[in-house]
């Protein structure tokens, strides 16, 4: 099957599956799956840039997605003036101490010759640490103490949430630059381990630094880019429109809100797809693939491999961060406790590998398929267990245990999908297009 048939065919099958969910289960569920698929597709595109274009193995997707979420929160939530007033001076001094420490450390590396730097740098860092702790502790105490039950954080800037998507992407890019500087250029496993570490640390920071994003107390009620259901239900024009369609106003309003998100997300996804397709088919994209396939040869041709790797790593992470910000916007809340590596890092990886690494359309398709399976596997697993154990007595301990364990079946399924694809079809559902001239089948 040629790619020109394969791609539309698989997407048509996917659309049919979503329509079937709409008809047989519910349209709300179908739209929920569609929206999360779109967000996942954007994260998968980011990972595909790193892995598919450049061969970089990033196991910290969760951390970059969470940073994107922080961006959305910090931009869109209204500021908390009381908390600012309580902690502003100490906060300013703490920030100053951070800057001064970094500046002093950089100055030492500039001025002191190599080999004699260790001691002065340690000294600078130790003094800096205590200064930051002194002001930082006072600031966090003041900020977190301000109406701790409902606020207890600095709040955001109160700007439109769509701007938060950009800021979220920038946060993720910044973290990626730092980590890339350290780990790129060493062997590939080290980047994997380093990204695994940074993502755990990002989550730990977000959970514990309550003055920033309320930590495990969660931020709820993020401003929306879409209207609220209740507003639509009170709008007579909308209610007339809904009755015209033969739907109750409550269902119609939630469908309408979901459709607004779908439209927004699709717009972002299409723009990203168009850009990445162009990039991949440009000289830059060919250079990236050349580096991926044979970095020594590419280096011999004068390409700066480490620099290119850093570039694509930062861009890919920014896209993941964008996806993370969109996800938080869709949920309307930021819950650090919900960031699990299996869900946010490894699931995205299964999407990219299944879809076909190196192919942008593949990543999008993979995201749709895997998210669909992920959502539907839970009831399916329960049904399976129910059928298997149907012969057992109602109160049987084994039956209860098996029914309780059913949700874990989908982890198993994901692992098996990943292993089977890697073994039997390593190029995925939609294999990468290679070369300028289409190959004969």
């Amino acid at each position: 099957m040629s790619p020109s048939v394969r791609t539309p065919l698989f997407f048509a099958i996917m659309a049919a599956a979503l329509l079937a969910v709409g008809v047989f289960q519910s349209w709300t569920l179908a739209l929920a799956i569609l929206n999360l698929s779109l967000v996942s597709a954007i994260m998968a595109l980011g990972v595909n840039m790193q892995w598919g274009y450049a061969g970089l193995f990033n196991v910290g997707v969760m951390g970059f997605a969470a940073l994107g979420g922080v961006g959305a929160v910090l931009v869109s939530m209204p500021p908390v003036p009381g908390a600012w007033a309580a902690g502003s001076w100490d906060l300013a001094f703490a920030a100053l101490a951070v800057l001064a420490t970094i500046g002093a450390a950089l100055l030492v590396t500039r001025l002191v010759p190599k080999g004699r730097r260790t001691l002065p740098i340690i000294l600078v860092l130790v003094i800096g640490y205590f200064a930051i702790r002194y002001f930082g502790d006072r600031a966090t105490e003041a900020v977190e103490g301000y109406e701790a039950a409902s606020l207890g954080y600095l709040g955001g800037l109160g700007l439109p949430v769509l701007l938060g998507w950009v800021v979220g992407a920038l946060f993720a890019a910044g973290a990626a630059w730092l980590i890339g500087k350290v780990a790129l250029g060493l062997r590939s496993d080290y980047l994997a381990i380093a990204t695994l570490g940074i993502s755990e640390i990002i989550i730990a920071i977000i959970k514990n630094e309550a003055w920033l994003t309320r930590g495990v107390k969660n931020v709820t009620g993020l401003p929306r880019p879409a209207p609220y259901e209740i507003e639509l239900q009170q709008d007579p024009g909308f209610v007339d429109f809904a009755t015209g369609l033969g739907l109750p106003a409550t269902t119609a309003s939630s469908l309408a809100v979901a459709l607004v998100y779908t439209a927004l997300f699709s717009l972002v996804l299409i723009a990203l797809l168009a850009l990445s397709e162009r990039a991949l088919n440009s000289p830059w994209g060919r250079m990236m693939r050349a580096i991926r396939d044979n970095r020594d040869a590419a280096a011999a041709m004068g390409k700066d491999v480490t620099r290119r790797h850093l570039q694509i790593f930062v861009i890919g992470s920014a896209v993941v961060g964008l996806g993370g910000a969109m996800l938080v916007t869709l949920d309307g809340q930021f819950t650090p406790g919900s960031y699990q590596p299996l869900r946010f890092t490894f699931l995205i990886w299964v999407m990219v590998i299944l879809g076909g690494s190196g192919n942008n359309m593949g990543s999008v398709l993979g995201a749709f398929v895997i998210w669909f399976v992920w959502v539907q596997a839970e009831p399916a697993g329960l049904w399976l267990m129910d059928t298997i154990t149907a012969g057992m007595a109602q109160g049987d301990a084994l039956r209860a245990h098996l029914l309780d364990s059913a949700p874990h079946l989908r982890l198993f399924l994901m692992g098996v999908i990943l292993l089977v694809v890697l073994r039997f079809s390593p190029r995925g559902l939609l294999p990468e297009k290679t070369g300028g001239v289409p190959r004969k089948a």
Partner: protein
Amino acid sequence: MENLANAFVVLANFVLIPGVAYGAQLALGALGVTLIYAVLRFSNFAHGDLMAFGTMATILGTWWLQANGIGIHPLPTALLMLPVGIAAAVALALGTDRVVYRFYRRRKAAPVVFVIVSVGVMFVYNALVRFFIGVEDQRFEDGERFIIRARDFETLTGLDEGLALRSSQVLTVVVALVAVAALFWFLQRTRTGKAMRAFSDNEDLALLSGIDPKRVVMITWVLAATLATLAGVLYGLDKSFRPFNYFQLLLPIFAAAIVGGIGKPVGAVVGGFVVAFSEVGLTYAYRRVLQYVVPEDLMPDGLAQLLSTDYKFAVSFIILVLVLLLRPTGILRGRVI
């Protein structure tokens, strides 16, 4: 003088002894990672979940023994079931190698492909563990909990501070010592161990000398699974068993292996203790120690804790980053490409 003794007792109780026990657990885990790396040449992301699987098998066996009233009283029953747990983990590891990794080995796939494959394996192990035992905390320690109780220590020495020595901590150190000694004896003295080291040093040369690669790979998995189960059970006895914690142990274990010099068994042991002591030492609140040695008017207000316990992963990570920046080969000059 007495103040100094008190300060030392507090330090020993909360930093030194837990650090030694944790270090021994990490060292066992890192040894497994480093062996896999030395022979199969990839970082095994499924190692934490292999630990969890072996521990789970041990726990299920322990429960069965407990239900039948079988025990070895002062010692925890889990010790009796260790061979069963190890056997289960070895069987799982060998089965995985046969079904999954062998295919890529024959194809001479790139190391990063192995890493991704190990992620898939991790998913499957993870699901198996959760399927059998669930996601909650499980405690399975029984037998005598303490060797020295804090109260007894206080009456014995007349100090204000008590020193508690838990049996799981002593057990950890003893088992780890025996396991590490046996491993090094095996690697240094036996023919098979020498064959493994030769294979790790130079694969082609080893093959030319008639070393059977299948045997070397098999022994490696057996050793890695054994070490993983030991590490997992000891960690579980010392703290508690929760599948997700075992996944998170992956980071300190990798850090330990890399700090020591990846592919070097001695390095893994050294790295395990470096990471453990840094983690415990940086996240301990020193207030109780300081109150004995610092005059009252100089006492700091806070807990004198350098880093909140929630950031213990940051410690492994910072150590990892420092090593990558300053000495990518690790303390003992392992491999780097």
